[in-house]
């Protein structure tokens, strides 16, 4: 392998941000930075030539899966997509059995998304290949947090010292958890904003500031990070109605005015326009980073793939 071994990232798996050091996160972001141009030039590299990357998605997700697929292809890997959401798993096969079956095809990296928290950890314990978590239950979505960090870093120069408000359904959000860990590790101040029914238990123990009043929560913020709403939770179960939610926690220009004048807006997508975010804010060229997030997603995932494969190579695998 010709991969420039990033020995400052000594892990074979990327299962979550929690526990990663600032150096490790910085290493991945630096690697990703280098791939942004490659990505724009549609160049194809040979870094992962001869390697097989397998996408194993137990939940539908067009954008994350495509992003990983493109990243792997740009690095010269062979890519297999398993749309497990509608295959043998529905016939009663367990996760382990599915994974062992696929493992017999000798993938080097397994990208997994699963509705149960901890599913990628189970595979990492049982399989010999690298495992990258593409979102597990309400636990973590590490590559999303990394691409968010890359987006912030490129626009603001640094993450340290920024105040970031993460708004919406923090309780059920893996994006929120990964971002809380990453932003705090890199020296940002993190706030979470949303109704108390959408906050996880013991959120005060995460070292974040908690706001139930969105205007107060946005006051003085550099970054407003919106979370996607799972609409099925908004029908009286966690909040009374969509219109009540969007009235108090939707991001429109009036709400955004509470943040710093140069505050930037982020959203992991897909958007529920007119619910958690207004169309004007989402599409505002100067302040919305939403499309950059998608773009940098590919570069970030290239970095993650390279990093774990380099660790595999160092181990002689």
């Amino acid at each position, binding site marked *: 392998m010709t991969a420039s071994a990033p020995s400052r990232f000594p892990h074979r798996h990327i299962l979550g941000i929690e526990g990663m050091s600032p150096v490790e996160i910085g290493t991945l972001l630096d690697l990703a930075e280098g791939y942004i141009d490659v990505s724009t030039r549609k160049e194809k590299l040979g870094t992962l030539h001869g390697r097989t990357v397998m996408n194993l998605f137990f939940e539908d997700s067009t954008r994350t899966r495509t992003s990983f697929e493109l990243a792997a292809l740009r690095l010269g890997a062979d890519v297999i997509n398993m749309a497990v959401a509608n295959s043998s798993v529905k016939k009663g096969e367990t996760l382990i059995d599915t994974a062992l079956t696929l493992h017999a095809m000798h993938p080097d990296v397994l990208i997994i998304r699963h509705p149960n928290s901890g599913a990628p950890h189970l595979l990492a314990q049982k399989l010999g290949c690298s495992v990258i978590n593409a979102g597990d*239950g309400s*636990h973590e979505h590490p590559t999303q947090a990394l691409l968010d960090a890359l987006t912030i870093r490129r626009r603001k120069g640094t993450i340290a010292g920024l105040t970031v408000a993460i708004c919406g359904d923090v309780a059920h959000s893996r994006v929120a958890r990964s971002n809380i860990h990453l932003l705090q590790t890199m020296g940002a101040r993190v706030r979470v904003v949303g109704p108390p029914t959408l906050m996880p238990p013991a959120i005060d123990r995460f070292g974040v500031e908690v706001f139930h009043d969105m205007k107060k929560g946005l006051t003085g913020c550099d970054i407003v990070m919106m979370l996607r709403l799972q609409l099925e939770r908004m029908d009286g179960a966690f909040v009374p109605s969509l219109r009540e939610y969007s009235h108090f926690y939707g991001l429109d220009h009036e709400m955004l005015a509470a943040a710093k004048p140069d505050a930037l807006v982020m959203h992991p997508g897909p958007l529920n326009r007119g619910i958690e975010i207004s169309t004007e804010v989402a599409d505002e060229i100067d302040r919305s980073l939403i499309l950059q997030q998608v773009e940098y997603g590919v570069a970030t995932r290239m970095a993650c793939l390279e990093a774990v494969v380099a660790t595999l190579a160092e181990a002689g695998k």
Partner: protein
Amino acid sequence: MSVTAFLNARLLDPATNLDTKGGLLIDGGVIAEIGPNVKAPAGAEIVDCGGACLAPGLIDMRVHAREPGEEYKETIATAAGAAVAGGVTTMVCLPNTMPAIDNPALVGFVLQRGREAGLAHVQTYAALTQNTDGHKLAEIGLLQEAGAIAFTDGTKAIDDPVLMRRALTYAKTFNALIVQHPEEPRMAKGGEAHAGELSARLGLSGIPGIAEAMMLERDMRLVEMTGGRYHAGHVSTGEGIEVIRRAKARGLRVTADTAPQYFALNENEIGEYRTFVRLSPPLRPESDRLAVVQGLADGTIDVIASDHAPHDQESKRLPFGQAEPGIIGLETLLPLSLALHHNGKLALLDVLRRLTIAPAELLGLPAGRLAKGAPADLVLFDLDKPWRVEEIKFRSTSKNSPFDNRPMQGHALRTIVAGRTVFTRKA
């Protein structure tokens, strides 16, 4: 049957607070003599206990034997084998099998299987509601006549307060004990772990600790109203235990048990989603673990039961939220309980009380005591022997124990049921 003499033993009987060197004679399956000056009569078989502890055999009032219906996980015979290897001489089977033990013929089936195994005494609960589905009362009187020892829906809470009220009221006719799984089911619905910082970090949906206290508080009102006999199974929270403490202080007929996992482990054992510690109720924070120890020490918790819940690999080798809850416990019940003594939390006789005479009195069993004429159900154990748990040595068909490879102190050397040695530990 000839006389057997157990000599040179440390006799331990919580029922009479006896702790003395001495011997014990067994004749015809019952205890014939006991005390410091017991001598073997001519022709008796003599067992030199070598100074080891001789106590009433343990009575484990929470065992999932999985038969009928899930014999690939455990059978009554294999569970009884595990029981005697753990010093348990009476095990009480929970009724949530497939089908549930909700008619007299099934009670007879379980008891018959127990007799066929010929190891530990096997007793059984019957379902409190038909098919344990919480809607209609099962035939409490007929089930009791068939041999059911108490009534419970096992791992399901009796949710409907009207039904619980009627059950407590109706059961009075038969002086039947009702055992609750004390958890407000809607608070616990879909829950994977104790609700708190750990569950939030791991992204596991949480079961708040107060789900236990809420159900217990409601039930205490119903016990007070009806005068029924009520027992709370596997209590796990400080708040829940406090509810029971207050109810006892007010004179209600209420008792409780807990399982070793709730005083030996806390939620941090989950680590990176270890499904072997997915339990119902879930493992709690350290503060609750300490409250369980305190509840045992002050007698609020009457009984220690293993909550033996065998699961095959396929039920545990799954993402945390899909894994079945429960661990096996028959063979670790004694050493984990003895740790309470070794750690200075409970006197040795108090540890044994919660494993012997307390469940015996609660369930109306003649065993659980070293008394002349009592059944010769005994355990001879080494109080101090250090050893390490090895999964492969478990007698249970299933091996789902989080204690694999853990150092333990003390274990059963010999188990005697109705005067007959049914287990001897190989040196």
